[in-house]
């Protein structure tokens, strides 16, 4: 998936792999970030409507993000292996939607899949594009664990900076004029 923006195909499902959740790691994440009793205390959790310990939704999501990053690196290696220059992924501006659908319990195995559903050049950052991604996590029973609609930056390969912008950037690199321009644009 670290392809250039132009090479990214829509509606193709990328398998991101699976993760097995242990009780110890569910409790550890809970203690650090989400210390509600059903995420950190197996005994107390029996009184909750979950009936036992469950992972914080943010834990399953963070693990899903890790799988996505690993898949990007793997694709980068694959492209280099073919003698091609890989594209560049940027940070994410946000998440449009995240729905936690089924709890993750100790011993569950969660499988993640990413689909790019849309893309367009960024209006605010020249030379970059926006990718609209759907990430879905499913447990070993085939139940949907979460559905996410994420946005990510991806660098354009074929971008040619407009001449005016190129001239402006060159001027901002001059010692005196650059300072004046930086002040003006604040």
């Amino acid at each position, binding site marked *: 998936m670290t392809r250039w923006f132009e090479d990214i195909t829509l509606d193709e499902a990328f398998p991101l792999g699976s993760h097995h959740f242990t009780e110890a790691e569910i409790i550890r994440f809970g203690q*650090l970030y*989400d210390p*509600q*009793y059903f995420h950190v205390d197996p005994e107390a959790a029996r009184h909750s409507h979950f009936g036992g310990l469950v992972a914080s939704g943010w834990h399953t999501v963070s*693990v899903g993000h890790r799988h996505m990053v690993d898949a990007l690196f793997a694709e980068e290696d694959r492209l280099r292996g073919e003698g091609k220059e890989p594209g560049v992924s940027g*940070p994410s501006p946000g998440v449009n939607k995240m729905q936690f659908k089924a*709890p993750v319990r100790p011993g569950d195995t969660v499988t993640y899949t990413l689909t790019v559903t849309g893309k367009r050049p960024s209006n605010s950052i020249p030379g970059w594009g926006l990718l609209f991604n759907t990430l879905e996590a499913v447990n070993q029973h085939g139940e949907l664990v979460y559905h996410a609609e994420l946005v990510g930056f991806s660098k354009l390969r074929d971008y040619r900076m407009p001449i005016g912008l190129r001239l402006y950037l060159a001027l901002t690199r001059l010692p005196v004029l650059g300072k004046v321009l930086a002040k003006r644009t604040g």
Partner: protein
Amino acid sequence: MNPITENRRHYEDLVEGETIDLGRIAVSKEMITGFAREFDPFPFHLDEAAAKASLLGGLASSGWQTAALTLRMLGDTFLTRIASMGGLGFSDLKWKKPVMVDDTITGTATIAALRRSRHHPERGIVTVDLDVRNQRGEPVMTMRLANLVELRDPSLPLVEGENP
């Protein structure tokens, strides 16, 4: 009655418009690289030089770490003090500005809406708007979160028009 949550605030005790001060967390370089190694190992979250060359302009936390730390603040100040039944999800999460090394994040949570679950009379849904800022008061992240909360009295009739 759930013995774990019986003395906590329930759905009936929450008020629309109520604002919760989230407190503050200072974000160190070790916290940023520690989280990144486990969940978000992009070079711009791990390496100073790579971060300077990236869109972030310097070593900054993973957006998911900013979210997780915000959740921690919301847990300490709100979710562990109400009869929470877990999160339903969130929407419109916007990472507005990167959290850089040694920034302190702070913010507020506002109860934006309260409604009963249509299918489970013992459950209410609280919608919370989060506004997270850095030590200069600049917006860092905003999002809208939906969380389930127990009713003290599930026999309370659903009010007409309560669940639009």
